[in-house]
């Protein structure tokens, strides 16, 4: 009887001390509603703070017969510098026109055409490339590089040697196929105190798009008129995602900003209608000096499709 009494006492005291709250869901799962973004998490530890990345805009077109051979070289250079080089193929101008029945695919975009005109590409051979939208004194101080100038690989190599940057740029993008929400978040760390006007430009690219392409390298026996109907187009620009009409994107910084400051930029948008496969899309964010129009930092992420 005594033992029972003590056991009861033991159980009684234990129950007094054993208060515990079990939490299964510390943060409720955000409810997603069409048109309302749940912005993705930017991994702040993975941000590049060591150098300025090399952003290359390649101007091309499906009717450009020499373009595929040059694209191969660019893609190869990017593969060799995966952590540094970002490539965007801009289809614009005469070589990018839709011409039925052989060239039915329309790769043109409004922003691509704006850029084509902005850089006066009509006067340049195609393909041409612009690297971080600035000139290179070591290579005749040009803005646009192609086979008629020093080829673009040299300025790209030079740009890849830089070892500092004023901005750390983090980027994350999520697309909900069901709701149509395309939610992009960028977290920017200011690494040194700077003064000026800066904008953020957000672009959408689609990789591995299968469509026609004129290609000098193939035999006519295999591809009549050298039109490769199942050509894989790489890093195709699908559009500008910012709402601002400026060619340099949305305003980000005006005046002086202290080192150590973090800026969050969120974009609630829709997937461009010309995208064929959402799983193959990427988002590219650029910080552009609005005064010089130079790209001073860039980042690219694969879009997480839900």
């Amino acid at each position, binding site marked *: 009887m005594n033992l029972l009494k003590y056991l009861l006492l033991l159980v009684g005291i234990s129950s007094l*001390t*054993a*208060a*515990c709250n*079990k939490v*299964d869901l*510390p943060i409720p799962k955000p409810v997603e509603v069409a048109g309302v973004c749940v912005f993705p998490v930017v*991994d*702040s530890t*993975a941000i590049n703070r060591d150098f300025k990345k090399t952003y290359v805009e390649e101007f091309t077109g499906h009717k450009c017969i020499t373009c595929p051979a040059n694209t191969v070289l660019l893609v190869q250079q990017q593969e060799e510098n995966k952590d540094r080089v970002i490539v965007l193929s801009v289809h614009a101008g005469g070589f990018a026109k839709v011409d039925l029945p052989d060239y039915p695919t329309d790769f043109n975009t409004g922003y691509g055409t704006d850029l084509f005109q902005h850089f006066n590409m009509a006067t340049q051979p195609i393909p041409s490339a612009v690297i971080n939208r600035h000139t290179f004194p070591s290579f005749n101080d040009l803005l646009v590089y192609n086979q008629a100038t020093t080829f673009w690989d040299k300025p790209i190599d030079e740009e890849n040697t830089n070892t500092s940057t004023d901005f750390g740029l983090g980027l994350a993008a999520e697309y909900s196929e069901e709701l149509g929400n395309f939610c992009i978040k960028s977290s920017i760390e200011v690494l040194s105190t700077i003064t000026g006007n800066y904008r953020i430009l957000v672009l959408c690219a689609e990789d591995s798009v299968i469509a026609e392409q004129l290609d000098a390298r193939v035999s006519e026996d295999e591809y009549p008129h050298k039109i490769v109907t199942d050509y894989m187009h790489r890093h195709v620009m699908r559009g500008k995602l910012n709402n601002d009409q400026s060619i340099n994107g949305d305003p980000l910084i005006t005046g002086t900003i202290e080192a150590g400051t973090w800026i969050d930029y969120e974009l609630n948008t829709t997937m461009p209608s010309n995208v064929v496969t959402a799983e193959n899309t990427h988002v590219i964010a650029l910080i552009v000096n609005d005064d010089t129009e130079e790209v001073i930092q860039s980042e690219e992420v694969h879009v997480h499709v839900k």
Partner: protein
Amino acid sequence: MKQLKLLTSLFLFFLVAPQALFAQDEGGGVFDGLQIHGNFDVYGQQYNKDSIIGAPIVPEKSGINAFTNLIATKGKFTAGVRIESYIPPVQGFDVRYGNQPIGVPFRYARFAQDGLEVTAGNFYEQFGNGLILRAYEERALGIDNAFDGVRVKYSPYKGVYLKALVGNQRYYWQKSDGIVRAFDSEFQLNELITKLESSPLRVSLGGSIVSKFQAGGNSSLKLPENVTGGAGRFQLNWKDFGLMGEYAYKANDPTKSNHYIYKEGQGIFMSATYSRKGFGVNISAKSIDNMEFRSDREAGLNDLFINYLPALSRQHTYNLAATLYPYATQPNGEVGIQGDLIYKIKRGSKMGGKYGTTIQVNVSLINALNRDYYTNADMDTANALLDQQVYLEADPGRKGYKTNLLNLGDSVYYRDFNIEIDRKFTKHFKLKATYAFQEYNIALIQNKVSPNVVANIAVLEGLHTIGKKHSIRWEAQTLFTDQDQGDWIFGLVEYGYSPHWIVTILNQYNYGNKVEDLRVNYPTAQVTYIQNALRMSIGYGRQRAGIFCVGGVCRNVPAANGLTVAITSSF
């Protein structure tokens, strides 16, 4: 106001205490049978400017830590107070002790009768090995996580020992926000079961439950306000063998140090011993995961620990081995094993010599616990994502990572192999030789950007006695390493004039430092006087920056140059 009341009470206490003693002598009065005893401990340092060793500039030029315990007993009653003063705290102790120059942070009253003991006020406590609860004072580390509340101990039946407590923990001069409630039971089967009374197999079983409450606050997370942990333990002894073990579990306990994950914590500790005359061996093993248990989820450093995780590394006593690369237990996860062997070679034998030789070998191996993060990222990235406190699709429950207690990681936290040979050569001369090999994860333990330190340490200690009153003890130590501060050498000579005086001179020299300007000598001289329970010492010299650890818990010791005074006594 509260402190004023306490000091008034103390004053009255001192006022009546002599009368009580007087009454005792006369053999009558209210205070008949009252006994008062206590102790005091004063440590003071004076600081000179010494930039070459990196000594911090102390505007006050000195620091003093002083403690006085007064304990009064009368029959079944005991009451005590501890007066502490920090004017200001000695360098290396938390500056928050200096928030109040003097005060009474510890006071209690206790009543004991017929197996029942009730303590009101402050008290220390430990359940089992401490895996789930240990409140203790380690003055040398500046640790005091005493409870302030009520504790009841009761033995309702022979062999059954129950403890229950509730209280807040000491947080420097304040109390923690969290309330701790705990219960422990221990069953000594050989006492409980009459038939086992004379059995050579001695069995003890125990179990504990500990719960803390802390309000949720304004976090974006839904925090568990009540967190419970529990532990079960056993101890078996059979003739020369001993085996003990304890397993502890803690429910979801998001804290600042674990990046607010809601994963359960677990820990296991096992120890096996065999000993007979002249030979002893012990093997201990431990694996812990997310077992930092504090009464405040925001607390850091050594503050407000409810539990204690036993160390599996040898507590070295020689200066270079003890203070340059001592291991600190990693409560968020580690796996370790330690072996100790002691063998005494018989006196008079060929190997043992005329007076015998003792050999001691110790090995500690401690590694990380491997973790698989739900976010498929490395530790830093995963923690950064958790720190953003947003909903993570890959880990909606914020469990952080998956592991189990046997999931040994590759990362080496600590290695220590040491051997000590102690031999008395003549009636007047004794020599001890020690060698230690250590590998130490300095990046983890000291936050230094460096690969693991690999150190070889050799020590020779001699003791000469000259007649009955005079003795000379000397130490020669050296530490070789290619990492951190490079090689060190240490020498000490100590003259003892029994029974009162000890004079010590020592120096350590960082001759292998890669930076030539930092190849510095640290000379110190000290005189100690001992008279019964009184011990006073005064020293002057340089103190090297280092780490001081007790039982795997450590504090930084800053460099200093100046005078030191230490006085301890009891009455």
